[in-house]
């Protein structure tokens, strides 16, 4: 390789590294540009449309296709039955959604903070990160950092917001840190994900604190991101550390993010006043 080519190669390499650094810096903390927001909005729209198709197909498979092989009646009756079952499946879907929303409404009225209902439209595309996308965005007053909950328990925090959609960092993601307490003993710790579907760690729990398996973990309410006393999960394992300062506590999340269909975005008290 000649000297000129070598210089050119190193110049190109330096430029590429600088471009990459600039790219990362520009997008730090989930910041997105104008074009990115358009892409996210377009993707969100497609995801919100396809999720209804996926749910419909899932409902159809569960409620009709798995049963059809067991029936040996004539074809006309089968077709009619299939049609009715499809209709029934759709109605049942509406009924269960209504029940969930009624439960959500009851749940919402119990809390002081203002809540905003949202549909989960997609999951994280990568297996290493545990995010969900919801169909509410800055147009609805959603801002990064707001809490996300469900009637089953705590879900996570808003990470990135576009006009109509928001990405949620769930509590099972290892980068998530949420203040929590053991309900029985009020021992404090930080809930952080383990990159597993429902398992989290309760970090920084003093080894002298009383923590037992099946203890309930709830949100501490510090920072007003989440309502105080909201269910986070249950302790599944405690490993005492006689020589260290902290003990290792594993918590099973009350919410399975892959089964979530509706969530509530929590508005902080100041924002709640504006909304109401």
């Amino acid at each position, binding site marked *: 390789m000649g000297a000129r080519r070598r210089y050119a190669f190193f110049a190109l390499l330096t430029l590429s590294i600088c471009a*990459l650094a600039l*790219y*990362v810096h520009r*997008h*730090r*903390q*989930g910041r*997105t540009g104008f074009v*990115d927001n358009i*892409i*996210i909005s377009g*993707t969100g729209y*497609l*995801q919100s449309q*396809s*999720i209804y198709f*996926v*749910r419909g*197909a*899932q409902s159809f498979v569960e409620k009709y296709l798995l049963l059809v092989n067991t029936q040996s009646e004539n074809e006309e009756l089968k077709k009619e039955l299939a049609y009715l079952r499809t209709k029934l499946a759709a109605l049942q879907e509406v009924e269960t959604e209504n029940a969930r929303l009624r439960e959500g409404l009851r749940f919402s009225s119990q809390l002081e903070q203002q809540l905003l209902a949202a549909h989960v439209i*997609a*999951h*994280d*595309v*990568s*297996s*290493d*990160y*545990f*995010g969900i*996308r919801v169909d509410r965005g800055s147009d609805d007053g959603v801002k990064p950092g707001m809490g996300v909950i469900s009637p089953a328990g705590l879900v996570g925090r808003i*990470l*990135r917001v576009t006009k109509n959609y928001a*990405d*949620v*960092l769930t509590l099972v*993601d*290892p*980068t998530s840190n949420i203040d929590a307490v053991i309900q029985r003993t009020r021992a404090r710790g930080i809930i952080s994900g383990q*990159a*597993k*579907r429902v398992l989290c760690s309760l970090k920084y729990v003093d080894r002298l604190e009383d923590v037992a398996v099946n203890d309930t973990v709830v949100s501490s309410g510090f920072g007003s991101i989440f309502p105080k006393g909201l269910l986070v999960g249950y302790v599944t394992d405690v490993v005492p550390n006689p020589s260290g300062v902290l003990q290792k506590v594993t918590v099973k999340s009350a919410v399975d993010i*892959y*089964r979530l269909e509706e969530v509530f975005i929590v508005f902080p008290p100041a924002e709640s006043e504006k909304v109401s």
Partner: protein
Amino acid sequence: MYFLQPNQKKFLESVNPILVTVFFYLLMVGRTNIEYVFPDVFRHWDILLPFIVYFGQRRSIAEGLTLSILTAHLYSLSSIAPIGVFVLHYLSLFIIARVLSYVIYANEGFTILMLLFALSLLARIINLPIASLFGHSWGSNGIGAFGMGLFLNTVLGFFIYLSLSLLDRMTFKTPTINIEMAGDSL
């Protein structure tokens, strides 16, 4: 398709990168929804990997780099990962796939499967230092990522690889071949 005029073939060839990107984009949207139906099965499936391997094998450096960065950025926008993690990760994989293209030309079933398997394994390993650059200490989440993840990336990746190859043929795209011996197998 062979009845087309040369200028029509040229046009189809020029839109190939757009079609490849759209193909990836639609698959990605489907991938973000599939966990509602199969929550545990497809979680470790890396949808972008076969595209990057294909770009490394069958595209010029400039086109491969552009497509890799574009698809990785689109991928980032559907994830809560810090933007930059995936671009760096897939750029590294593209470079490895590109270097490997001088040694192996994946054109037949076995070589494609082996290449996808090897790069899938490598992807899980290089994920760790790249994630740590962004302040994350994990990367590969447990045995599932190595077991089911490797299987899915190899098998489903194989079909995506073949689909891309078919798309190239349909759009009269001439793949870049680096290995000299490849001429004999074609």
